[in-house]
């Protein structure tokens, strides 16, 4: 009889207790996952979005910056200065272009540049070599005066040996009377 009572008592206390603990534990776990998971997901997504935006902004900025740098470099390399026939005098246009080139050289302090002096075909070859030299060294002096160290600049004359336009007309000759800058 006594034994039976103990079992019932045990059942009365333990079984609900068990039930309680089970349900309680179950509930707590359920609560935990739903809340933290959601927050974390949202935060991660937001963070990713922000990061993606920032990344894209950075890419865009870098691209723009790169483009600007490339454009400046292209301008530096492609924009020749031009001269009158049998003249090494820097025209106002030529001086403006050289100022832009000096700026670029200042922004790119590790770059060394070669200044090529060229002539049109009309003069005679030996004289044109000297004229090309005057053009190149004149442009070099101008850049040095704007603060570019002479050690970064080399002047070289090609006379009439390397025309950009082989034509035999004033338009072609005007193109060929030039200083062209290259970088090393």
């Amino acid at each position, binding site marked *: 009889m006594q034994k039976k009572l103990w079992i019932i008592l045990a059942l009365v206390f333990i079984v609900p207790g068990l039930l309680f603990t089970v349900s309680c534990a179950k509930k707590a776990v359920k609560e935990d996952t739903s809340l933290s998971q959601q927050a974390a997901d949202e935060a991660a997504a937001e963070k990713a979005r922000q990061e993606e935006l920032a990344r894209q902004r950075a890419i865009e900025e870098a691209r723009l910056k790169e483009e600007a740098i490339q454009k400046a470099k292209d301008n530096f390399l492609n924009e020749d200065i031009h001269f009158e026939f*049998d003249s090494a005098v820097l025209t106002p246009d030529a001086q403006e272009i050289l100022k832009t080139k000096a700026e670029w050289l200042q922004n790119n302090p590790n770059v060394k540049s070669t200044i090529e002096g060229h002539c049109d075909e009309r003069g005679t070859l*030996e*004289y044109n070599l*000297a004229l090309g030299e005057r053009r190149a060294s004149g442009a070099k002096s101008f850049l040095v005066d704007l603060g570019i160290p002479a050690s970064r600049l080399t002047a*070289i004359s090609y006379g009439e040996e390397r025309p950009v336009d082989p034509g035999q007309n004033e338009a072609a000759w005007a193109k060929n009377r030039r200083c062209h800058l290259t970088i090393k």
Partner: protein
Amino acid sequence: MRNCWIKIFWLIVIMSFWALQGVARAGYDYIDISHPFLRKIPIAVPLFKKVSSGHETDQLSKSAPDLLAETLEFTGYFKLLDREAFLVNPQTDAAFASINFHDWTSIGAELLVTGGVLVQDNLVEIELRLYDTFKEQLLVGKRYKGRVEDERKIIRRFCSEVIYTLTGDRGIFNTKIAFVSTGTGNKEIYICEFDGYNPRQLTHTKSITLSPAWASDGQWLAYTSYAKGKPDLYIKNLRENRSYVVAKKGINTTPAWFPNKFELAATLSFSDDPEIYLLTGTGKIIKRLTYNKGIDVSPTWSPDGKSVGFVSKRSGTPQIYIKDIDSGQVKRLTFQGRYNTQPSWSPKGDKMAYSGMENGHNNIFVIGFDGQGPIQLTHNEGDNESPSWSPDGNLIVFTSTREGPSRIYVMTSYGTDQRRLLVLKGRQTEPKWSPRMVNK
């Protein structure tokens, strides 16, 4: 009447030759004084007599007189008579000993060259004689022995004798011409014989190579090349593998050898300004020759080395100036035109040839130091540039675009007999006539 004078003239010349041999060198100058290219001396060069028989004899008996005629004609002194008009054919008719001079005078010949060819075992013997047909006299006769391949050498030697007999000058038959050609796609220096024969590439720089200049002994050639990326000056021995380089900052261009010395003038711009300097043959600076801000370029020495001509922009346009080395005085030589460059001092010292630009085109001019001229030698035929005198002063080699690409031409110093020297691939520029080669 004119013919009569010429005969008398010839008589005097020939008499003085025989009578004053050795003393009368000045007497030979008649050809210059008399303006030789206005009237050419009619000369007959019949086919040579065949002393032996066979294929080679047949060939030589025709090719040798052809070459001889061509070579003599190159000088501009002679008018070659057409063989069709000859009354006799010495190949079949006459022996050397029995020339009927009337056969030649009656067709207008004043000079006659006869020859005989003997070939034996690839060895050739050529006998050559120059006659004055009016005087009925042998002026010079020579017998040459050599290999069959020496034909050209033999003919040139005899031509030299002919010119020496007639003018007292050895002529130009042992000279060469250096020039620049773009045949390989790059500008390289080539050398050919005086008559355009046998052009050969001298430099293989695979870059821009320019402005050859001969030393007086013909053994050194200076030139500018971009072989190392910039215009440096190279001084090269043509026989031995020796050379020197002047590679200062800027341009190292337009070499011009000092007469009979191992020294040369050149334009250097290491001071940022193209100036002319005198250098040793090994490329060391002896002294500076020009002092002027702006372009000074293209030196050319007077034959006595006392003066140097050059191009300067000191008056605003490129003009030719002359500096007296001792006094240091500089005189302007050209006043006509706004672009006068490429001066070349005549070997006799009396004239300067140069290129002058008018209406956008260059032409060759000659100006005398006696105030004569300038006389324009080329007209209305493209661009004519880069004059260089033959060492006897009778011919000028130059470039012209008259047939399209720039090619090399020769004319007499009076502008007559303009002809193309050679045809090569590409464009040819900057011809420079060599001095007479020694031991050749």
